């Protein structure tokens, strides 16, 4: 059995090694070996699947908490230095405020003698998170190798800081493992701060003005969440001076009177980290970073840390007004972010809004927090991580070949890059079509919301928001599959490691839909059962029908064979005018006219600015409301 500390420490060691290695060959070797070992180690966690309840692993080093505090202070100093350098005074103020809170917490904590032994733990939810981080995270690391060398060829002005890039990526993985396996809240906070730092530095990788600004935007918003988190720690110390409640599991199992305020504060931190409105700006801005960073932030790390903590606190939030309002923040975000995605033609922006929407949905499920909804939320986390990482990496690959990430430039991609297109197609299908993953979760969420208190509002949000997602995904699919007869094939020159990663992720997207009943039975259901005492699943006949639909979808492409003798190909109908295959026709007065086709974006209906204003106002109002309610409880 691989001990949990290994998963936390090993990526950090690989990171340190990568910081020292400047040679490309050695770096390649270290990343491959590191990623393979992390992947294998996270898979080996499956052998220690706990049957019910968490398994604890006490960590004997008492001084570790003090070391972490020292590191946090060092990070604060470092960030303040960067803030002064780039003249970001708001960031400096926020960092100072957070540091002051931390110092006050730490003095309080150190002054009381207590026998609390910080634990690492594993239960099914941590295990699922661990698998996502370990498998998808390490696949993205491998992909980055090929991507970053092309990136620096294509962006000669960006200084080559690949050493720190890979260092940060592996530290990120280490921090994520720490976050999901820590039971001691000050440790969770420490790893939380590390992920904030890593994302800040990775977003600012290219050091252009835009990337620096967006990096600081992300930093400000995440520090705001960090402040709330630190506030939660101080509150816990105030109500339980012995410090027992600093352990996640004791806190969740304690009474509402103690746990609700920290749950809301940490929930707020989760909202900032998972980029719900009004904090969605940082995740959209984060796409200035190299694409593997986006893939990492959107799928296996960062935003998933945000929803992870909210899912953790779902049993505390369920049935409370506070939980309902946090759920509504998620619901409003889901609806509006889905609408905003319609007006975007930049593929990475569409993906960003879709991520924000899905995180909103996860938070809506976890905030309302009945057992069925938590089941759906965990399923969403899994499906989203796989399909979204696949899509980002596909877009990254396409961008390097055709020099654009605009969906309009992807016309006829099926002719130009057939294999990548099929992968992208599967990824998109995985995001919204039956019988693929995300749709299953939406379906279960609809069924579960009906029974929840005030669930009707969420059902309406899902009905309307769900159809909006259909629109923006299908028009993207349509662009890909348009067969323009004169396109040139440009699929050569993609490094093997990219192919390997993309193929694995594509296979996972499909397989997870077939295998999810097993995952549900062995991981999600036991977790929900251990927390709520009851659990749910999809009925057997629905599973059978969906398996049949999968089978049909897999054999449908063979229907092409039936028609292989049909050879009579004609150009598209152009009102009877003589037309060439590239859609040039002879117009009036003998002029040659060229046709180009462009998707609808409905700017005036689904415009980004307008909807962002509406969403931010609504969500900010809701957050203030929950803040007022919580302050009422706390005082």
């Amino acid at each position, binding site marked *: 059995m691989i001990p949990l500390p290994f998963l936390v420490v090993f990526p950090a060691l690989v990171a340190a090694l990568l910081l020292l290695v400047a040679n490309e060959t050695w770096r390649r070797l270290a990343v491959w070996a590191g990623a393979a070992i992390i992947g294998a180690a996270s898979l080996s966690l499956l052998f220690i699947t706990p049957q019910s309840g968490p398994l604890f692993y006490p960590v004997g080093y008492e001084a570790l908490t003090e070391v972490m505090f020292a590191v946090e202070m060092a990070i604060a100093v470092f960030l303040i230095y960067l803030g002064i350098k780039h003249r970001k005074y708001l960031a400096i103020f926020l960092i100072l405020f957070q540091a002051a809170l931390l110092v006050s917490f730490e003095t309080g904590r150190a002054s009381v003698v207590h026998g609390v032994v910080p634990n690492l733990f594993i239960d099914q939810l941590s295990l699922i998170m661990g698998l996502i981080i370990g498998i998808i995270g390490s696949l993205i690391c491998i992909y980055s190798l090929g991507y970053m060398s092309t990136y620096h060829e294509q962006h000669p002005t960006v200084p080559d800081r690949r050493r720190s890039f890979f260092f940060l990526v592996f530290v990120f993985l280490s921090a994520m493992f720490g976050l999901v396996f820590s039971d001691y809240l000050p440790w969770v906070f420490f790893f939380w701060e590390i992920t904030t730092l890593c994302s800040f530095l990775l977003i600012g990788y290219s050091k252009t003005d835009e990337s620096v600004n967006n990096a600081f935007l992300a930093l400000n918003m995440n520090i705001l969440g960090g402040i709330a988190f630190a506030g939660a720690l101080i509150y816990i110390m105030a109500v339980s001076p012995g410090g027992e409640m600093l352990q996640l599991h004791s806190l969740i199992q304690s009474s509402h009177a103690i746990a609700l305020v920290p749950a809301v504060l940490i929930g707020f931190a989760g909202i900032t980290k998972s980029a719900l409105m009004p904090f969605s700006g940082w995740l959209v801005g984060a796409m200035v970073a190299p694409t593997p960073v986006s893939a990492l932030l959107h799928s296996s790390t960062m935003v998933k840390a945000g929803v992870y903590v909210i899912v953790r606190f779902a049993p505390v939030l369920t049935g409370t007004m506070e939980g309902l309002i946090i759920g509504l923040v998620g619901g409003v975000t889901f609806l509006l972010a889905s609408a905003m995605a319609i007006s975007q033609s930049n593929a990475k922006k569409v993906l960003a809004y879709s991520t924000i929407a899905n995180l909103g949905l996860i938070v809506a499920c976890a905030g309302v927090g009945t057992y069925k909804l938590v089941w759906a939320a965990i399923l969403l986390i899994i499906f989203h991580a796989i399909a979204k990482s696949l899509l980002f990496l596909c877009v990254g690959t396409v961008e390097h070949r055709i020099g654009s990430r605009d969906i309009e430039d992807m016309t*006829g991609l*099926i002719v130009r890059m057939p294999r990548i297109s099929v992968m992208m197609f599967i990824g998109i299908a995985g995001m919204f*079509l*039956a*019988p693929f993953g995300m*749709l299953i979760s939406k*379906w279960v969420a*609809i*069924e579960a919301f*009906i029974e929840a208190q005030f669930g*009707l509002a969420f*059902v*309406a949000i*899902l*009905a*309307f928001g*769900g*159809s*909006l997602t*259909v*629109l923006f995904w*299908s*028009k993207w*699919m*349509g*662009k890909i*599959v*348009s*067969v*323009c*007869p004169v396109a040139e094939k440009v699929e050569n020159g993609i490094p093997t490691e990219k192919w390997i990663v993309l193929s694995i992720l594509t296979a996972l997207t499909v397989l997870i839909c077939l295998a999810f009943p097993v995952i549900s039975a062995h991981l999600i259901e036991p977790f929900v059962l251990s927390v709520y005492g009851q659990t749910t699943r999809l*009925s057997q*006949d*629905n599973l059978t*029908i*969906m398996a049949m*639909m999968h089978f*049909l*979808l897999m054999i*449908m*492409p063979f*229907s*092409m064979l*039936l*028609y*292989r003798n*049909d050879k*009579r*190909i*004609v150009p*598209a*109908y*152009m*009102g009877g005018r003589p037309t060439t295959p590239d*859609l040039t026709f002879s117009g009036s007065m003998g002029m040659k006219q060229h*046709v180009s*086709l462009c*998707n*609808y974006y409905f700017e005036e*209906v689904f415009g980004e600015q307008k909807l962002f204003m509406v969403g931010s106002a609504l969500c900010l109002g809701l957050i203030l409301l929950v803040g007022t309610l919580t302050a009422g409880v706390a005082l």
Partner: protein
Amino acid sequence: MHMGNALLFILLAPIVGGLVAGIDRKITARMQGRVGPPLLQPFYDVGKLFEKEQILVTPSQNFYITSYLVFIVVSGGLFFAGGDILLVIFAFTLAHIFLVLGAYSSYSPYSFIGAERELIQIIAYEPMIILSAVGMYMVTRSFYVADIMAAEFPLIYYLPGIFIGFLMVLTIKLRKSPFDLSTSHHAHQEIVKGVTTEFSGPMFGLVELAHWYENVFLLGFIYLFFAWNPLIAIGALAIVYFAEIVIDNTFSRVTWQLTLKSSWIIAGFMGLANLGILYYLSAVVPL
């Protein structure tokens, strides 16, 4: 699950759908002061389509159209077998996405615009259909069509708002004016035949066949509202369909903006108000 019913649907729906289309054309003709074609004309038309030479813009069209037909049949079959109505709706959406992709794949201006409009129509009607399913669940406590069918009271009493909302989107689904944006039964469309412009011969025959299947499925959905009494239900179907023909002949085509707005507003007001009242009632007096 009643697999026999699914089988009956697969075998009989084309006949029923074709007859309905024939009656539709006959009544429409009479309304316009014409004699109209024979009742069986739709069958002759589709039969002739299958005898024609297959002309393609791109071979991949075949794949999308076949998938469209297959998944329409799957969703209808699942519906008549008494399956989970949400799954039926999702399979139904999947089928239409295939139709849209088929239109996109040809890279033709007319079918491209048709595809975009078809997508708008999908997002216009989908929320209302999901809300209808939710309404049926709230009344019968089950998502299974079999259980909803078995309800011993008229669903329409509890779901009048939902029913009106559903009629609204039914006009879209039957491709009737004023909502025949993406393709039309009539040959006066400004974008030629919209989504189906580039489909011809046997492939177009499959599209027609799928449309018949689809219509029978939709009539089945309306039947659910009246399922407690089959006679009244069939009467209601006749009235509803006749009303659709009247609407088709009296309204002119509207823009996509109005289509989307009106169907969302109706879904929002009629559907949600209906659900809200049910929700409130079920909290006060359990049904």
